[in-house]
């Protein structure tokens, strides 16, 4: 998996590309931890180029959102492909994360209330 990072206003965007599996979820965990360590608590993860997600990736996201909620930050996801969205729906994660169909909507929502 490739992870690229960009900042838009007070939001850090992580663009993921490839598979979020047992191996690459560790990279995702490291990337999120680094952002949080720098006191940025507003993160958008763009899934538009993710074709596969396993439980290891879901665990990283759940751990992250538990922490981010505690520090009153925001974690949102956007542009999930249908099969990846189906996995989020199956495990009930669609109720735990704000999920947007495109990046613009997500950024608009994240920047509201700042």
């Amino acid at each position: 998996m490739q992870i690229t990072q960009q900042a838009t206003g007070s939001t850090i965007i992580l663009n993921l590309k490839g598979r979020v599996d047992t191996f690459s979820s560790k990279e995702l965990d490291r990337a999120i931890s680094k952002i949080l360590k720098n006191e940025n608590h507003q993160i958008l993860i763009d899934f538009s180029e993710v074709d596969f997600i396993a439980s290891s990736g879901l665990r990283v996201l759940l751990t992250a959102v538990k922490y981010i909620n505690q520090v009153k930050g925001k974690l949102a996801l956007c542009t999930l492909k249908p099969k990846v969205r189906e996995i989020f729906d199956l495990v009930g994660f669609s109720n735990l994360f704000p999920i947007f169909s495109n990046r613009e909507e997500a950024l608009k929502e994240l920047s509201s209330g700042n």
Partner: protein
Amino acid sequence: MSKKINFTLENDLLELKRIQSPLNIFFRSNHLSKDVIFSIELILEESLKNIISYGYPSKEKHEILVSLEITNKELLLIIKDDGKAFNPINHKDPDPTKTIEERSVGGLGVFLIKKMADNLNYFRKGNFNHLIIKKNLT
């Protein structure tokens, strides 16, 4: 192209990477749908990761046998390992209605195996776990 493929894996997580390429060739040459491929890849990833990570108390080398066979209507996946007895069918499912604070970070892998399979059977014979998974192709 063969309608059947067998793998023998060591109890090392890196083996998950090694089987990706031959698996992709097998899937492509048998013209499986994206949906079926996604499901089988997820079942394999979650099952093998569980066996390798939790099945063996010592670091001693073990072999895990995997076979995939395609018939007209279904894909049959069999995973055989000599790790600790573990029946995923009896594993408690996570509650998807719980809040973020209440949700546990574990248990999702087995839940996904159950959801991705159209039919799941387990039995223990001798020192071996046998997991038999069927995925409809029609």
